[in-house]
């Protein structure tokens, strides 16, 4: 209990304290940006794709503890996955991987899913060109 508010799981706090994959990718193969300042959460998600497999993922996030933790988690989850597999990652999966989220924070996992989808779509539309 001493290392985080009761409502966040240890896993959330762990990712919040040591977020993985913070930063940007230069010339990424896909970028997603979701959220807006009005509602208090903005996520940017960058991916690098090689032979249909996501080899790298990074994020920048303005938002609460859950927003940062879900960003971190989703970038971890997506690495090594095919585009198809990545498209199947749901917000619930992200939340579950974090040991659950308080109900008022579930929207952060939705944002993470949307950021990922948006990056994947960006990649797909670019690769179609």
């Amino acid at each position, binding site marked *: 209990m001493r*290392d*985080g*508010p009761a409502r*966040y799981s240890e896993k959330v*706090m762990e990712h*919040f*304290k040591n*977020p993985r994959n*913070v*930063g*940007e990718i230069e010339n990424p193969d896909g970028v997603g*940006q979701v959220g807006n*300042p*009005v*509602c*208090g*959460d*903005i*996520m*940017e998600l960058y991916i690098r794709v090689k032979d249909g497999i996501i080899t790298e993922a990074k*994020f*920048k*996030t*303005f*938002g*609460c*503890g*859950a*927003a*940062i933790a879900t960003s971190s988690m989703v970038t971890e989850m997506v690495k090594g996955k095919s585009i198809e597999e990545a498209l199947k990652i749901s917000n619930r999966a992200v939340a579950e991987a974090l040991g659950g989220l308080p109900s*008022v924070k579930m*929207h952060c996992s939705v944002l993470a899913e949307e950021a990922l989808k948006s990056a994947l779509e960006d990649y797909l539309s670019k690769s179609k060109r």
Partner: protein
Amino acid sequence: MKRIFLDHAATTPAHPEVVKAMLPYFTGAFGNPSSIYSYGQEAKVAVEKVRAKVAGFIGAKSEEVIFTGGGTEADNFALKGIALANEHKGNHIITTSIEHHAVIETCKFLERRGGFKVTYLPVDGYGLVDPQEVKKAITNKTILVSVMNANNEIGTIQPIDEISKYVKEAGILFHTDAVQTVGHIPVNVDELGIDLLSISAHKLYGPKGVGALYIRKGTRISPFVHGGEQERGRRAGTENVPGIVGLSKAIELARQEMGEEAKRLACLRDRLIQGLLENLDHVHLNGHPFRRLPNNVNVSVDFVEGESMLLNLDLENICASTGSACSSSSLEPSHVLRALGLPPEQAHGSLRFTLGRENTADEVDLVVEVLSRIVTRLRAMSPLFKNSRVAK
């Protein structure tokens, strides 16, 4: 690492003297003040003695103070009690857009279910209510004006005495939520010119779950809690004797220490504000530069969100508060910060530090240092910060 508690506007620890004063009333002198045997009457005498003390502190008479179950109940009692007792005179209430939820939600209830119309006055960029606006808002249906003495989020102190002139001129009742001021800065009901005033014990080193409502003699008010004859028929329910004694002890201590303590806190406050503004770019003070509570610091830190700062501070054992949406279940940022006209990012990036009895200059300096570190780290992962650098 020692905890640094900088959230005294949320609650304060009961002073050890307060606890000591309360203790006998739990087990030894536990009588019910409504009982007629001496044992109960002893409790009654104790309650009446401390009622005089509480009343004296705000310049009121004993019989003008009613004990309640907290500040929220006092606000509910004031607004609903006055509304109900005076609805034959009119159905209009004036308040501000930065009141505590205890006032705002009660007003909304009166609008929804009581047939009342409520005017929520705007405030300026510092959180000040314009007395002229109050005057203009008064109609012949207005029965009550409720303007808080000082705001709990941004610490802005309202010109209550100026407002009360217009309210009194119009012959209207005036309530002020003084939960954040009583015990911290001087409060006198005659000088402020108010008819009703809410107090909460746990904001001034008293116990949680006790408060008081001052009701000027001669004011028609309906009871809020119905039942027995306690508090001369105005507030039913067995008196919380230990709690009431605790509130009074807290007030006694405040009477002795408030003057010096306010000066000390104002110094710490200014040290903290200066430290933050000097050590961090893109930080803004929210609220009024000097018409503010001696213990209140409220800043907006651009490009980072409040809860994430709070959590990081918490990890370093520093307790603060934020007006960010993320800290509420409504997902809306603080209504107070919005009323100031802050853009949403700044409302989301707000931090409140409220100082208290045990805080020191060293702690303040440490907080500045720790927060600078946290903000640098969080900005490094903020897409807004990047964009801002690009934009420059």
